């Protein structure tokens, strides 16, 4: 396996078309029996100072890509998965748009689902990305993960 971390970052929202495309690319891999997909969508949450209209993402990109690389390697070592694809937005993503896309494929459902969950949790906890929630009135709050 190549040691160079793959880029996961996409400028702006992740196009919904990417989901179908990702699935179609795996139709020739007939050892796959299951795909698990997680999508994060920007919520129009109500804050004290206003309603979230968009999130602006920034990252410590080099460290983030190294960290995602480690997570990928750990997941491939732990689960018999065939493929793992991870995308995260940078810059502005409007409410209702997709900002995070994790896609895992495996012969059987359990591995695909468990691997997908683990990637989602680890990326939220371990990858240096920050969301600034814009309130559409020049105000903003810094997103907090739970």
């Amino acid at each position: 396996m190549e040691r160079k971390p793959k880029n996961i970052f996409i400028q702006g929202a992740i196009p919904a078309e990417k989901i179908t495309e990702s699935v179609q690319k795996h139709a020739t891999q007939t050892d796959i029996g299951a795909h698990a997909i997680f999508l994060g969508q920007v919520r129009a949450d109500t804050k004290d100072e206003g309603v979230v209209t968009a999130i602006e993402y920034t990252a410590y990109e080099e460290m983030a890509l190294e960290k995602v690389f480690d997570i990928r390697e750990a997941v491939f070592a732990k689960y018999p998965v065939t493929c793992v694809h991870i995308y995260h937005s940078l810059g502005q993503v409007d409410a209702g748009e997709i900002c995070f896309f994790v896609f895992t494929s495996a012969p059987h459902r359990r591995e695909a689902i468990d691997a997908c969950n683990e990637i989602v949790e680890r990326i939220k906890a371990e990858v240096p990305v920050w969301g600034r929630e814009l309130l559409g009135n020049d105000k903003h709050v810094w997103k907090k993960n739970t």
Partner: protein
Amino acid sequence: MKTGFHTIKMFGILAEKTGQHVLTVPLMADTDQLTAWLFERYPQLEGIKFTLAVNKQLIHNNTPLDEGVEVALLPPYSGG
């Protein structure tokens, strides 16, 4: 005595509060000395939670700083 400078990257709310994404600071012996220096220059950092990374590795204890290392101040992550 050490000469030269460190480059410090700041992210998220820390970059916002200091108005700086990258700081050039005098060479420091270790991370404790660096954070003391930062709090003195940027009192607005007081009370904001962050972790340090040295060469992209999170550090949790005082760590010596060699010239050329990359130091980053990371507020709690909120990706996803």
